[in-house]
């Protein structure tokens, strides 16, 4: 693995620190010896061909892999802000409130727009109407959706367009004020215009959140990400500032992938 942080003027504090992580579905390894420090308040893109383990890695950060039978970490550790999240005594619900996630296929609940946004707040027992209203507005504004839906907050979320639904999912994820936002190919099901809006949104969001985005689209990685990690066959091949990774990759496999000779 080639890691280079010489370009960064100051060493950035790591939000997620992954050390020698190995992960397997039953006996089948999906990740081997991944070591990676993801910097806080930056956008990090995970790229690589299908099945390279980038989504698996992403889903380790909020331990949503737990629900897949047979999926388990075989070695190594993940620390988020210094806490080992694979300890037995981790409060999973709190972890997932701190590490929000947006999925590839936008999946708002068949409820009203408002109910979607305040979902996580209701889960944590918040009942006061004016607080809910305020947080819903903040989250929708942050997701650049407020102006489009402010007049129909109580109409069906599934009546929105695809891009709007995905932004609603982002609003829903940031309503619980997480520190880290995980995005699993958030634009894969969207058209270019909607994709552009989400990418603009990402630039706004990184001021407040550490963002990790899995993408198939290399152009998207160059447009949004500060750092990019290239993964192949369950291994981290190269991690570097985005421009450096795409312009002067150090590893021949990275070069082959970013120039389109394979993948």
């Amino acid at each position, binding site marked *: 693995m080639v890691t280079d942080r010489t370009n960064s003027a100051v060493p950035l504090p790591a939000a997620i620190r992954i050390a020698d992580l190995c992960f397997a579905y039953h006996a089948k390894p999906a990740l081997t010896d991944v070591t990676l420090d993801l910097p806080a308040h930056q956008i990090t893109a995970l790229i690589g061909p299908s099945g390279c383990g980038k989504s698996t890695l992403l889903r380790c950060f909020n331990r949503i892999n737990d629900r897949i039978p047979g999926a388990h970490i075989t070695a190594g550790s993940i620390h988020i802000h210094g806490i080992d999240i694979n300890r037995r005594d981790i409060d999973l619900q709190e972890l997932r409130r701190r590490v929000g996630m947006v999925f590839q296929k936008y999946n708002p*609940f068949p409820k009203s727009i408002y109910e979607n946004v305040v979902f996580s707040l209701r889960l944590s027992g918040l009942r006061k109407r004016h607080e809910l209203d305020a947080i819903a507005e903040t989250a929708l504004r942050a997701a650049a959706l407020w102006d489009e839906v402010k007049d129909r907050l109580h109409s069906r979320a599934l009546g929105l367009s695809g891009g709007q639904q995905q932004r609603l999912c982002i609003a829903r994820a940031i309503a619980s004020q997480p520190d880290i936002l995980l995005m699993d190919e958030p634009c894969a099901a969207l058209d270019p215009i909607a994709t552009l809006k989400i990418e603009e949104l990402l630039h706004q969001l990184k001021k407040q959140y550490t963002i990790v985005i899995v993408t198939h689209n290399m152009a998207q990685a160059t447009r949004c990400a500060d750092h990019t990690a290239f993964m192949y066959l369950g291994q981290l091949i190269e991690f570097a500032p985005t421009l450096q990774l795409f312009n002067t990759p150090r590893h021949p496999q990275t070069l082959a992938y970013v120039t389109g000779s394979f993948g």
Partner: protein
Amino acid sequence: MHNPESLILKGLPKGHAKDHAVRLLLGAATYLIVIIAALLFCKIIKDGAPVLFTTKAPFVDLGFLLDKNETLHVFDDAQGVRHQLAASKYSEYVKHHDGAPIYNEQTFSYSGGGIAGPIVGTVLLTVGSMILALFFGVGAAIYLSEYAKQSPFIHAVRLAILNLAGIPSIVFGLFGFSVFVLAVPVITRTPADRSLLTLPLWFGDAVVSFQGWNSSLLAGCATLACMILPVIITASEESLRAVPQGFRDAALAMGATRWQTIRTCVLPFSIPGILTSSLLAVTRVAGETAPIMFTAAVAAKDDLPWQSLANPFDLLSSQVQALPYHIYTLAARIPASEATQRAQYGSVFVFLILVASLSAGSMLLRAKLRSKLKW
């Protein structure tokens, strides 16, 4: 192409006769079923509708729906006029015409008065068994689809539940009789002689006695619930699985617990499917005779179920009349005659309307919920 002219049909295409014959046969089979069903319904409606509907306002014979079931007395008076009177009206008549002679008297059990008792009994049995079946059935379905690991053992359990659906209802009747009527534990101060086992309690002089609930509403509801449990479990599990995985992921990723996920993001969206299947189960519960024959139903009962009860809980341990059993009694236990036709066809007609409206209701409800919860 060698000879394009060969594309043009000369005469009938090959296999035309066979095709036609198959089509005719299958069509005939289909319409035969429809015609037989239609004839059956027409017969019931033709004979039953006049009992229930009248030409005068309010156009429905409320007496038939609201009166208690009684013995029918048929007789001639001195003028040779034939009377058909239910038992209570008959005794009034006798009192009124003190000493007037009565000729050609015949009595028909269960054929006089109305069918309020059976209707109420069927409603109580249906409501009770649906409460039990939904509680246990939806619970089991949630466990099977959301909590249980998909192991060979769970597959075996699921298969066993599916197979339960094929058991004849009379077997459920006997099962209910031997378990709920004779064997389940009750807490009592005076255990019956036939109690299988009595265990002392740590307080008072009450004991736990395995003597069953006797033939009672509760035993009938439990038996009927057992009968429809497989249907409810299978259908509920199916509709739980139909809820997109994305909803579960999203809820979990936002910090919901397993149960919060199920309660807020899975169960509400599977309710249309569960409701449809359970309303179909309602029609089955309302219509079955065999499971309640030994466990809950009586042919004749003077009071409505809630009348003359010491306390409200006695309702559960009292026997009830039920429409399907009433129809069975009318058809099988009393001699057919012109005088009994009113009760027979009327009961069947009312029963048919009840079941048909339940099915129609389930369809409407499903359509309404489906349109509200689309994804």
